[in-house]
C-alpha cells in the first residue's frame, strides 16, 4: 500500500517535471530570439527610425518610415479583403458545412492554407502584376489576403463550432430570428477565439516576405500610391540583411525588432478589445 503510494507520487513528480521541461524547451527559442533581437536591434531604435526615410549607403541614421507605413497599408488591404470573406465563409461552414458545398469549401481552404507563400506571390504576379504592367501595393495586399483568408475562415469555423448548441436553442426558443441568433449570440460567444485567430493571421502576414517580392517589390522612396511599388518591413529587412553594408545590417536588426514589436502590440491590443464588452452591458 505504502509502496504503491510512493510510486504514484514519484511518477506524478517526474511527469510534472517532464511537462515543465517541455514547456521550457518550447519557450527557449522565443526567449533567445527576443533577447538577441533586443540586443542587436535596440541601439538604432529611436524616433528617427519611425519618422525618417532610409539614408543612402554611408550616411548614418535614417529610418524605415516608408516600410512601416507600407506594411501597415498592405496588411490593411489584405485584412479588408480577407476578413469579410473569412468570417462569412467560416459562418457558412459552421452552419451549413454538412452539405456537399461545405466539404468542397473546406477542402479548398485547407489546400490554400498549405500552398507555399512564394507560389501565391507568383500567382498574383501572373494575374495582377503582369496584366497591369507594374508592381503595386495593391498586388501585395491581394497576395497577403490570399494567405490570410483561409486561416481566418477555418479558425472562425472551428471557433463557432465550439459554441454549445444549447445557446442557439436558448436564443431560438426566445423568439429571436435565426440570423440574429447567429450574429448576436453565436458569433459574440465565439468572438474571443475568432479575434485571436484574426490576430494570428495578421501576425503571420505582417512578416511574410516571399509573396511581396513579386508583387509590392519594395521601394526605397516615400510612396502611398496603391498602384505603385511600395516598401514593406520584411522586404526592407531582407534587402538590408543581405547587403554588405554594416549600417544597413544594423537597420535590418532594428527592423526585425520593430516587426516583432508590432505583432506584440497587436496582440495585446486585441486582447484588451475582447475583454471590454464582457463587463459592458448594451441595452
Amino acid at each position, binding site marked *: 500500500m505504502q509502496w504503491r503510494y510512493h510510486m504514484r507520487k514519484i511518477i506524478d513528480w517526474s511527469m510534472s517535471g517532464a511537462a515543465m521541461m517541455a514547456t521550457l524547451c518550447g519557450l527557449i527559442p522565443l526567449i533567445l530570439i527576443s533577447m538577441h533581437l533586443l540586443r542587436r536591434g535596440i541601439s538604432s531604435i529611436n524616433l528617427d527610425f519611425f519618422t525618417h526615410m532610409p539614408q543612402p549607403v554611408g550616411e548614418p541614421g535614417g529610418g524605415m518610415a516608408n516600410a512601416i507605413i507600407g506594411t501597415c497599408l498592405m496588411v490593411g488591404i489584405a485584412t479588408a479583403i480577407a476578413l469579410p470573406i473569412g468570417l462569412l465563409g467560416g459562418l457558412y461552414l459552421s452552419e451549413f458545412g*454538412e452539405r456537399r458545398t461545405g466539404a468542397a469549401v473546406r477542402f479548398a481552404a485547407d489546400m490554400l492554407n498549405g500552398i507555399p507563400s512564394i507560389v501565391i506571390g507568383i500567382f498574383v504576379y501572373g494575374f495582377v502584376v503582369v496584366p497591369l504592367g507594374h508592381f503595386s501595393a495593391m498586388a501585395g495586399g491581394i497576395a497577403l489576403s490570399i494567405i490570410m483568408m483561409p486561416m481566418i475562415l477555418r479558425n472562425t469555423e472551428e471557433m463557432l463550432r465550439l459554441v*454549445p448548441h*444549447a*445557446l442557439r*436553442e*436558448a*436564443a*431560438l*426558443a*426566445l*423568439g*429571436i*430570428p435565426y440570423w*440574429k*441568433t447567429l450574429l*448576436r*449570440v453565436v458569433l*459574440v*460567444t465565439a*468572438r474571443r477565439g475568432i479575434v485571436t485567430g484574426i490576430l494570428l493571421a495578421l501576425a503571420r502576414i505582417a512578416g511574410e516576405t516571399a509573396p511581396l517580392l513579386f508583387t509590392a517589390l519594395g521601394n526605397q522612396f516615400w510612396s502611398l500610391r496603391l498602384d505603385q511599388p511600395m516598401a514593406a518591413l520584411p522586404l526592407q529587412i531582407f534587402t538590408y540583411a543581405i547587403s554588405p553594408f554594416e549600417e544597413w545590417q544594423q537597420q535590418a536588426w532594428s527592423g526585425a525588432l520593430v516587426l516583432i514589436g508590432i505583432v506584440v502590440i497587436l496582440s495585446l491590443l486585441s486582447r484588451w478589445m475582447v475583454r471590454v*464588452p*464582457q*463587463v459592458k*452591458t*448594451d*441595452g
Partner: protein
Amino acid sequence: MDDHGQKLSTQHLQAWFGAHLALKEVSIDIPGNRVTAIIGPSGCGKSTLIRCMNRMHETIPSARAAGAVLLDGRSIYQQDPVQLRRQVGMIFQKPNPFPTMSIIDNVTAGLRLNGLRDRRRLEEIAAQCLQKAALWEEVKDKLRYPGAGLSGGQQQRLCIARALAVNPEVLLMDEPCSALDPISTSKIEELIHELRAHYTIVLVTHNMQQAARASDQTAFMYMGRLVECGETRQVFTTPKAQQTEDYITGRFG
C-alpha cells in the same frame, strides 16, 4: 374548480428524426392556467412532444412532423415560428444562460435582440421578471455580473426569468430540475406553482414525485405513444392503463 379552456392541443401528432418515428399519433389537450406533467421512461418522446409545441423540433436537420398542433384553436404551423416562440416559451434541462451577458442582459435578451432599446423599460421588465422567477432578492445587487457566475439553481431561475421577459402565454419545461440539487428543485417547484396562475405550463419530468406534487394533470407516455392522460390524482391513484400502473409503481422505467 374553475373552467379551464384548452390552451394548446395536439392532434394525431407524429414526429420523425430521419426515418425514426419518435411520436406516434399523439393527441393531447393542455388546459390553460394549469400545470400538465408529462412522465414516462427516458427516450419515450417527452422532449420531442414539447419541442413540437414551439416548433423547435424542426430546427434539427432531418427532423419533421405531421399532424396538428393548435394554440388557442389556431394551427401553429400556419404561424411564423419566431412569433410563436415568443408566445410559447421553453426552459431546458440544463440551465443555458448566455455566457457573454450579465444577469440583467440575460433577462432582457429576447427583448433587446428583437429591437427594444428603451433602457428604463428594459430595467423595469428585468426587475419584474426576476421577481416573478423568485430570483430578485438574490441578484438585485449584482445585476451587471455575468449570468454564468450564478449557481445551477439560480441559473435555471434566470432562464425562467428570461423566458418570462418576452411575455409568453405557455411555458414548456423540459426536466427543468434534473440538473439541480433538492433545495433548488423545491424552489423551482414552488415557482411553478405560483406561475400557474398566469401561465399555462407543460412540465416534462422523469421524477414521479415531482409530477404528483406540482401538476394538475398528468400524461404518461411510452415508446412514442400517449398512454394515458388525466387528473394527476386519478392517474397516480387509479390509472386506467396497465402500463401506467406498472410505471408508477416502479415495475419498469
